[in-house]
């Protein structure tokens, strides 16, 4: 007999015939994601078919920018939206995070890095070659740069040498580029690269890891053997081949190659998380209530792997930034000749007089790498519910 006839008066009645789930029943965030991706696709087609030069004013979009747009949309949908939509819950996590000094410092550095990278180059412009202002030391320091032929000091000159000025707070290179602008632009490149490559890695690793762990059997075997195989291929070698022969030595190639070849470790972690959660009581309860695989994956498996994925991705980001600097130093990555690596290669002043260029770049890189690592550690501590409980 149907369950509706047998209810005690105390029990809530539900008429299931009214509750048919329809395909149109999508959440606004899903609709937003689809719309945003569609908008990017339409603009992309428009840009390639109709307005083939600059899209708006002088803003000429390159393929890296398209990749970045897609990555940013995914970041907003799966990072920012859940954080804001469940603010009641996530505020607790954020507070917990900010209560830790290491977390606060690393977050501040990353935010500063992101803001500088995003708006810095637009606000203060690209580094410019200026032979009337080469070898200028940073403010508050002095250097005997005037001993070098054709070098004139912008600031006052005393017995101690040339004094740095506020015009060039971090000094200039041997071709007179302002180091502040260089670091800003370095942050810009690093930001673009890390968002894009990290999103590629996160998406692929989560998809592969959860599929392998959840469905098991030959799916698991095939995917994980592929990961084994992929991990034997050094991304840097593939990058050199692809960049010099096919796609060019730009950020696009770097993000694509490193993003598509470095997700193996994350996928492995996600898989083991999934294996553990697949047998957990809440997954079995959801299944016995009639949940589909998709529901279980979306509601339970993937959200619970978030901590692992975030931690692992923040470990990959500094490696990417360093790899880019290294490749640029070796002339294997061209970013309009303004990457940190190229500056190190091209504009390094003679020993003893240009220490500030190396120092600024090193401090920036060390700070950023450290910040991402500390951020990842703290995020894991805070997000891991086992430790909170």
């Amino acid at each position, binding site marked *: 007999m149907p369950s509706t006839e047998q209810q005690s008066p105390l*029990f809530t009645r539900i008429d299931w015939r009214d509750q048919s789930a329809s395909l149109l029943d999508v959440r606004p965030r899903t609709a937003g994601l689809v719309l945003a991706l569609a908008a990017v696709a339409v603009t992309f087609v428009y840009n390639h078919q109709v307005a083939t030069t600059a899209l708006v004013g002088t803003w000429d979009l390159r393929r890296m920018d398209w990749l970045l747009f897609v990555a940013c949309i995914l970041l907003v949908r799966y990072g920012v939206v859940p954080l804001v939509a469940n603010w009641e819950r996530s505020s607790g996590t954020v507070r917990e995070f900010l209560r830790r000094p290491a977390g606060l410092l690393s977050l501040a550095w990353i935010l500063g890095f992101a803001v500088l990278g995003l708006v810095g180059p637009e606000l203060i412009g690209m580094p410019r070659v200026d032979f009337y202002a080469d070898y200028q030391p940073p403010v508050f320091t002095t250097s005997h740069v005037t001993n070098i032929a054709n070098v004139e000091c912008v600031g006052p000159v005393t017995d101690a040498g040339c004094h740095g000025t506020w015009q060039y707070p971090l000094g200039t290179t041997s071709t007179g580029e302002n180091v502040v602008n260089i670091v800003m632009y370095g942050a810009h490149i690093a930001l673009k690269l890390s968002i894009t490559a990290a999103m590629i890695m996160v998406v692929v690793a989560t998809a592969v890891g959860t599929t392998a762990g959840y469905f098991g059997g030959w799916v698991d075997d095939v995917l994980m053997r592929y990961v084994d195989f992929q991990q034997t291929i050094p991304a840097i070698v593939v990058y050199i081949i692809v960049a010099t022969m096919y796609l060019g030595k730009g950020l696009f190639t770097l993000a694509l190659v490193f993003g598509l070849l470095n997700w193996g470790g994350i996928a492995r972690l996600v898989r083991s998380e999934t294996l553990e959660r697949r047998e957990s009581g809440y997954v079995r309860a959801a299944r016995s209530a009639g949940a589909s695989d998709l529901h279980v994956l979306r509601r339970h498996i993937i959200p619970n792997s978030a901590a692992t994925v975030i931690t692992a991705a923040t470990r990959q980001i500094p490696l990417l930034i360093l790899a880019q600097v290294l490749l640029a130093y070796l002339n294997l990555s061209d970013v309009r000749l303004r990457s940190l690596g190229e500056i190190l290669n091209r504009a390094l002043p003679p020993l003893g007089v240009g220490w500030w260029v190396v120092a600024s770049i090193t401090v920036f890189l060390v700070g950023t790498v450290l910040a991402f690592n500390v951020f990842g550690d703290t995020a894991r501590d805070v997000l891991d519910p086992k430790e909170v409980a």
Partner: protein
Amino acid sequence: MTDDPLLAVRDLKKHYPVRSGLLRRVTGQVKAVDGISFEVREGETVGLVGESGCGKSTTATSVLRLEEPTAGDVYFEGDDITAYDDDEQKRFRRRAQMVFQDPNSAFDPRMTVGESVAEPLAIHGLRDDDRQAEIVSDILERVGLSADDADRYPHEFSGGQKQRIALARALILNPDLLVADEPVSALDVSVQAEILSLLDDLQSELGLSMLLISHDLGVVREVCDRVGVMYLGEMVEVAPTEELFANPQHPYTEALLASIPEPDPRSRGEAVELTGDVPDPSNPPSGCSFHTRCPRVVPPEDFEFPDGSFRQVLDFRLAAENGDVDTDALAGDTALREEFGLPSSLPDPDAESVLAAAISDAASGDVEAAADRLADAFPTVCERTDPELVDTEAGHPAACHLHDAASEHAPPELTNPQD
């Protein structure tokens, strides 16, 4: 409405393939559930008991088709659930729910209790938040929690409270059948009693039918109307609870009943101990699968064995077959007899001569010959044929050769081998 029981299980089997080697070839079968049948009627609570590994939980998941049964039929109100299509399956999921053993892993740590409890509603298409909240607060109060608890997280609750919440989640779809897999065995004894009485109350209020799975006969006695006893994937006895406790018909049931601790300290020491280990379900013993441990194993008809002594002889033989007789450490006939609890001589001279020969074989190091000699001389019906689940004189069915019409010899009295 029909006269069909709410749930009828017919000859249910669930075998898991054992794969080994590089090519993952199937090299064997673990017969987790091997042909069991039972019924759950409207408003009735049926218990399934047995040791761990006897297939109780597999039965539960197969009955709900959370795992596809290997063979057999499960009828829900007369409809075969293994033939359900997707829509019917979804409707069935609303009407049959499950509660799991460990309440500590039963909730997604990222979801509030309210969200967890409301999840089945969302799965079945009720997505209106206000309506969900209303139903959730109603059901939380029904299981003895407060409506405000919906906004808290699982780790803020104790084990007993979590099991209440798990019950709320299982009952929120207002099912007709609840399968509870060891619902209280992860809880403190005092909390166990609370949850069991809650189950009892809810069941009578809601007219719920329940399949309760437990290794603990004490729990079963508390709530069940009828009990099925399982051993190694087979049902060995089914009886109304009172009758099972008063008049057990299967030696395994007797042993389980004897294992319930008596609160009276003076009545200690009457426990029937089972000898040997639970056999491997991938390689179950021939005949009655309980014969390797049965304290009342049927002796061969041609010989006279005093109380329970055939058990020791059989233990010795099985140990010899498995190579568990350490002839180096146990030099000499007397040492062997002592180790296996064999009497210094059997009263039946024919039996004694066979046993003595076997022991001297073993003592001289030829354990295999000893095993063969005993197997040839002392065949037992328990080893040869698998007993059917048939009605006994007590009025309920049990699967044991002691109740065979053919076995005319008096069953040996149940005594403690150490006596």
